[in-house]
């Protein structure tokens, strides 16, 4: 083990700093605010620090390490040129308060991203400000709220969410002050139009839904659902978590949605770095555009005096929407993530559609290969598809309920068994409508060979006896971690000698 706080060498050996412009004794602070004792931080030299973090990195699994089939998280390859671009001083060393004429290049990229995202989703206007998918959801429902207040429709206090939705949907709408109406899904996780019909009314503000749904199935009744909600004057919200499945094949606009958030880090690849950063722009139809957060980028033809600083024939400016809800992040969103996603998009251009097709091809092929290998190994009785379907979209679900019933092998056991085979485990126990659920999303990144090998290894795990699987993993840096112990014996920072 390497512990950061075990390093306690000589003061100031981490890195030498230039002399200050004045001596510390020439600085004055209010007497009652002079820090009495410095933080008890460790002291490391650069060689020690580099070794510590390299050691830690080796105890972590990323897409670069291997297959990362974590359903709903769209873990695709991050092209390294994106990292090179994001470190250029023209983005890394830019201040959001710099005047427009100093950042025409950046504004032009923002504009291009707004336009591209609008086109892909069939929306009319886009803000890049929200910094995560959940914040995008929150931003959109805030826009809905102001839209209804503007129209005097104060009675619209309810947001409808299917029970299979991501937890962020109800959490975001509740944060904005809406009451949540959860409706049950059908057994295949699809929307139950009767259940929807029973709850819509003049108090409906919106319905939040993702399509394909969390089981990876396309909601074929989506246009009808939109009609139902619009019929009572409500708005339709598209959770873009699964947008990678449909780009260029259909769009939220075509399905009747009024607003959408994009998980740029999923659909367009911003390395997720252990849980963030992300980026969660939203797109809206024209009637909601005046309520978007401020500012967004607009453009006009450049005049002669601007031509020296212009990057093309246009002049790009910040624009405040007429009835803006204001800000959801203090600056201009996660600009660094937006630049990486711009770079990612540019590598595909109009062939973004091919990207989505390959994501869907891979998911369907993997489902096929898993069944094929399980059958040939004689373990196909241990699981069933999470939902019966001819085709899936970007992800597939399996239910390990048969294995649990007959052998006591749970989805979690299989997940831990896969860790021992050198994989990241799929998402387990989500969505809740599938018992002993395992949710697998290969993305377009994986080769046929990887998918075939994974399917073989999956079948191998199912051949392992229950007791061995209960004890898995055994090859990882630690074995099963006691989460109950962690919660009962809270240790949230280095204890020193307390």
């Amino acid at each position, binding site marked *: 083990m390497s512990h950061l706080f075990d390093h306690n060498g000589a003061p100031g050996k981490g890195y030498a700093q230039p002399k200050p412009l004045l001596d510390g004794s020439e600085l004055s602070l209010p007497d009652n605010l002079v820090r009495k004792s410095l933080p008890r931080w460790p002291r490391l030299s650069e060689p020690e620090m580099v070794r510590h973090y390299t050691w830690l990195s080796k105890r972590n699994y990323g897409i670069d390490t291997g297959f990362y089939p974590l359903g709903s998280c769209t873990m695709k390859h991050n092209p390294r040129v994106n990292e090179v671009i994001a470190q250029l001083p023209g983005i890394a060393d830019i201040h959001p308060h710099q005047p427009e004429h100093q950042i025409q290049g950046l504004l032009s990229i923002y504009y291009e991203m707004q336009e591209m995202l609008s086109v892909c989703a069939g929306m009319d206007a886009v803000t890049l400000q929200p910094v995560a998918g959940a914040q995008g959801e929150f931003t959109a429902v805030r826009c809905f709220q102001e839209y209804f207040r503007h129209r005097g429709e104060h009675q619209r206090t309810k947001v409808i969410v299917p029970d299979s939705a991501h937890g962020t949907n109800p959490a975001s709408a*509740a944060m904005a002050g809406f009451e949540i109406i959860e409706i049950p899904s059908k057994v295949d996780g699809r929307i139950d139009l009767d259940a929807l019909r029973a709850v819509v009314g003049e108090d409906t503000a919106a319905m939040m839904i993702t399509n394909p749904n969390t089981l990876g199935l396309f909601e074929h009744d989506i246009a009808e659902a939109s009609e139902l909600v619009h019929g009572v004057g409500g708005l339709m919200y598209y959770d873009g978590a699964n947008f990678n499945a449909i780009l260029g094949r259909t769009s939220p606009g075509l399905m009747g949605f009024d607003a959408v958030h994009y998980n740029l880090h999923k659909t367009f690849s911003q390395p997720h770095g252990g849980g963030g950063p992300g980026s969660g722009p939203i797109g809206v139809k024209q009637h909601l555009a005046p309520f978007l957060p401020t500012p967004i980028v607009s453009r006009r033809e450049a005049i002669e005096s601007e031509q020296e600083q212009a990057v093309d024939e246009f002049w790009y400016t910040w624009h405040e929407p007429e009835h803006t809800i204001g800000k959801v992040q203090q600056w201009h969103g996660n600009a660094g993530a937006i630049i990486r996603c711009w770079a990612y998009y*540019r590598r595909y251009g109009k062939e973004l559609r091919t990207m989505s097709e390959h994501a869907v091809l891979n998911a369907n092929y993997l489902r096929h290969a898993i069944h094929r290998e399980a059958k040939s190994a004689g373990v196909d009785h241990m699981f069933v598809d999470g939902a019966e379907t001819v085709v899936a979209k970007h992800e597939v679900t399996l239910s390990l309920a048969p294995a649990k019933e007959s052998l006591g092998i749970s989805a979690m056991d299989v997940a831990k068994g896969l860790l021992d085979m050198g994989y990241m485990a799929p998402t387990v126990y989500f969505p809740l409508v599938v018992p002993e659920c395992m949710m697998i999303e290969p993305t377009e990144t994986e080769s046929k060979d990887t998918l075939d090998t994974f399917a073989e290894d999956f079948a191998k795990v199912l051949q392992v006896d229950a007791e061995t699987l209960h004890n898995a993993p055994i090859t990882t840096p630690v074995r099963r971690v006691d989460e109950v112990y962690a919660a009962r014996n809270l240790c949230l920072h280095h204890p020193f000698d307390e």
Partner: protein
Amino acid sequence: MVDQLPNLGREKEMLQEMGFDSIDALFADVPVGVRMNEDLPLPEAQSEEELLADAKRLLGSNVALGDKVSFLGAGLYRNFVPSCVFQLITRGEFLTSYTPYQPEVSQGMLQAMWEFQSLISELISMPVTNLSLYDGSTAAAEAITCAVRVHNRKAEQKNTVYISELTPPDRCSVIYNYCQGAGIEIKKLKHHENGLIDLDDVANAAGSCAVYVEQPNPLGIIDGGYPALKEIIGEHTALIVAIQPISLGLVEAPGNYGADIVVGEGQPLGSPITAGGPIYGIFGCTKDYLRLMPGRIVGRSIDVDGKEAYCLTLSTREQHIRRHRATSNICTNETLIALMGAMHMSLLGPEGLEELAIRNMAACTYAKQKLSSIEGLSIVHQHQSHFNEFAIEVPDTGKNCLTFLEDKGIIGGFDLSWWYPDQSNRLLLTFTDQTSGQDIEQLATELQSWVNEVVA
């Protein structure tokens, strides 16, 4: 031609094995009425070489702060971050990992984040911290809603919080958006003409849910009145203090003068400004707020063999379990940027932090000395202690002053009329460890010649 897809050219083989004749068959479940029938109206795919050329042309046309002499800060600070931070952060095992839902193969990031919590806890003197929120503004907003959840039941002024009137409008707007859903009313606390908080006015906040102030305040002032705040507002009103983390190498940690929640913009430690994101929000609190706080937390635990191990803990507060009753909707946070912060902190060590704080404050103090000799220009709060920045009043509009300086190759600071519309002749000037004595002397010279021009 697209080059990122390993199965290009193998589509047919894969489809045939599944018994499909075309990719279209995989989308047969999309109803005809909602299908996109035309190609996306987007340009052709670019090679890496073409992309790089475009990126360099477009981003290269921006004026980077380092291209000029810059005094622009106002909430984000240009500090030196050692090279090894940037090198280590590109380790694919860190860079390309997701939220550590499988702790057995995520020990590296989990331990690194537990160490981050430990470093921040020590820095701000708080027993509990999370793995980061989006930025300083959302951290402030989440702190306020958290305080209301904890205190509202017993509060005399229900659903009411008080924030400093100096809080920049952009940050206020974020706070408002986060608070309005819970029906929280935001009232303002007055500051004296000398920039310090009006402690008599603070007395009005007693019995409310929370008081929010910033140290240094938005005008760079270190306010010696803050240690009196907690006693004035009382035990049942949360004291929330937002900090600039580097300042805590010299300035007392808010946890040691009564703060209940400490938030802040983490960016100065470990991260470039990057046009305002991704950066990271710091959030720390006392144990009273633990069960109702936002964001992910790592706990130290053991594995089945009793071996030291780390995992996410207290997840029942979070959206994926508690859904609409969660303490926040946050899911994705800024872990990778927080990791850069942890790396920077671990190289600094305690004495390095103090040295860095001295360098930042020294640059600011040196500038104050130089600029105070310019006739016709005044330093607004001359007699206060400043960290990183201070306001000046100029004999014409701040805007005109900035235009003049720009012609001389200087990004002259922040026009305070953006925040406070009646202050069109004030600028906020920022000095960090990246400001040289020569930069300041050049600024003083150019300001003097501008003042001469304007006054004449």
